[in-house]
């Protein structure tokens, strides 16, 4: 089989750097606006009280840290899903995906960066993102003592949280590198040993992923709304990560194909990727609705507060995002990708995958902002700037990893099956 090397030209690389530069400029502009009191009611820095016009005063550092956290959780999830995708394909003995498997494998090159950013943001901005990190909540003699949060301190405490975070990233990075190494050695030496070993590695990773993806979702997203709880939350974050990751893989395949790479990938492979995106956008909706229905039906104050904050609460700040979330992430992919032809055409898939990637960014926005910035959240230069910086860094790491080895795993035992894939 022919080897294919991805060449990232200096021009493309410069585009990524430009993306980062524009992001930095926007971010700084946003910070200056905020610090200078761009919005009239934003000057009340420091006090936690709501300001006159109904917008809560939020310091620019808090907004910055929450933005960093939001983007980092989102992009780390996509990177992690790359390894998960490959592991699922191995364990399922899948043949069709062999031609594209180097793309999900390369997604996880972002994981070390994500780990460092996450650590730094938690150490320096932990108080801004997580209410439960404040010491006074656990002090019985303090008027601000919170018995509910204090009751969770066995799990939610600074050191255990930090250790868990380090363990997640260590395991994820280790297994991603291990799978990559086996795959690269297979390219060089051939034989089926690497394949069988990869299946065992994948099976181990899936067990670890099953646990850590859930606990990571509790730690990084659910614990922002410390009083609230949901037994479906691990699934919910996983579904959001998974469908965004699938959309990222599909979009990369399409872009590479449009640039003349992946010559052996044809509309049959796109069809299967399209089915994945279609099915899991429905899966996400199913999880979303299952969570919503139970809380809506039971209507218990401490449970339904989560949805009230996102629907009519916070002065209706999040209402439009709440409904946009459902339209962009469910209605749009559902109706557009329903036909067979749409899944086999690059243009339709491209539009839908971009919509899903943007939509799920908003999904994470909706999970994090109401619990941290409340009415002070916005969509301005700071949000756009941070997202652009992360996107640029992610693409740099991803494309660098992708160009290290051949795009086609030349000695994979199922390569022939993938080339002749037909649906």
């Amino acid at each position, binding site marked *: 089989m022919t080897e294919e090397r991805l060449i990232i030209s200096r021009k493309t690389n410069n585009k990524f750097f430009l993306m980062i530069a524009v992001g930095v400029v926007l971010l700084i502009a946003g910070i200056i606006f905020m610090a200078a009191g761009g919005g009239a009611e934003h000057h009340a820095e420091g006090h936690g009280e709501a300001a006159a016009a109904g917008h809560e005063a939020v310091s620019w550092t808090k907004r910055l840290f929450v933005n960093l956290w939001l983007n980092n959780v989102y992009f780390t999830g996509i990177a992690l899903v790359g390894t998960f995708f490959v592991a699922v394909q191995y364990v399922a003995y899948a043949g069709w995906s062999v031609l594209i498997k180097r793309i999900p494998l390369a997604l996880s090159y972002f994981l070390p960066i994500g780990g460092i950013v996450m650590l730094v943001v938690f150490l320096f901005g932990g108080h801004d993102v997580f209410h439960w990190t404040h010491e006074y909540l656990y002090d019985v003699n303090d008027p601000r003592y919170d018995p509910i949060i204090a009751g969770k301190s066995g799990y939610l405490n600074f050191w255990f949280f930090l250790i868990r975070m380090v363990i997640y990233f260590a395991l994820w990075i280790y297994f991603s590198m291990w799978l990559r190494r086996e795959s690269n050695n297979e390219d060089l030496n051939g034989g089926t040993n690497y394949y069988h070993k990869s299946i065992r590695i994948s099976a181990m990773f899936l067990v670890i992923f099953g646990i850590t993806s859930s606990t990571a979702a509790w730690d990084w997203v659910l614990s922002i709304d410390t009083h609230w709880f949901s037994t479906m939350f691990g699934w919910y974050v996983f579904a959001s990560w998974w469908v965004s990751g699938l959309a990222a893989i599909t979009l990369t395949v399409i872009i590479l194909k449009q640039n003349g790479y992946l010559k052996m990938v044809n509309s049959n492979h796109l069809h299967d990727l399209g089915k994945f995106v279609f099915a899991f956008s429905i899966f996400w909706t199913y999880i979303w*609705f299952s969570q*919503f*229905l139970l809380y*809506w*039906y039971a*209507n218990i104050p401490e449970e339904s507060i989560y949805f009230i904050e996102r629907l009519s609460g916070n002065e209706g700040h999040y209402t439009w995002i709440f409904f946009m979330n459902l339209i962009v992430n469910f209605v749009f992919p559902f109706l557009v990708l*329903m*036909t*067979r032809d749409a899944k086999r055409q690059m243009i339709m898939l491209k539009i839908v995958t971009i919509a899903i990637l943007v939509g799920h960014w908003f999904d994470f926005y909706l999970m994090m902002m109401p619990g941290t910035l409340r009415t002070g959240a916005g969509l301005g230069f700071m949000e756009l700037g941070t997202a652009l910086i992360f996107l640029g860094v992610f693409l740099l790491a991803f494309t660098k990893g992708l160009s290290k080895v051949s795009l086609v795993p030349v000695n994979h035992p199922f390569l022939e099956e993938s080339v002749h894939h*037909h649906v």
Partner: protein
Amino acid sequence: MNKKFVLGIYDDEDVLLTAIENIRAAGTNIYEVFSPYPVHGIDDVLGIKRSRLPIVAFFGGLTGMSFALWMQIWMMGFDWPMIIGGKPHISLPSFIPVTFELTVLFSAFSMVITFFIVSKLRPSLKVNVFDKRSTDDKFVMAIEVKDGVTNMDALNDLLRSNGAIEVNEKEVVK
């Protein structure tokens, strides 16, 4: 009325696919090909258009969804309003599970029923089995013979030159 068929028997999938292409290119109409299992790509070489069954599924689903919503809104909102869990009579979130189920049910049933009707599957159906080996390990290609039009020798040659291991004739009572 009786119909006469020439049956080309094949024992290899790839030979069969190229044979179909060549025979169709030679201007011969293939009546039907029987295979013990689905063969990848046989629809394309036979020139069979894709089924329009998904359209039926879509409209069946749409009907199911409309019916479910109408049923629940009418029953819970107008015919026999009840207060359940302090919710409004017409509250969409609680209708969604039933709506989902009926959408799936209607689209599945409409597909199955349409399939039965279109393919004329009914209890009284009499099936002409051209060659029983097409349920075992042989592929059977049936070509209809038109009296006075079909050149039997040429057809025989065409089939054999394209890899048929046997060429038989069969008369079918319609």
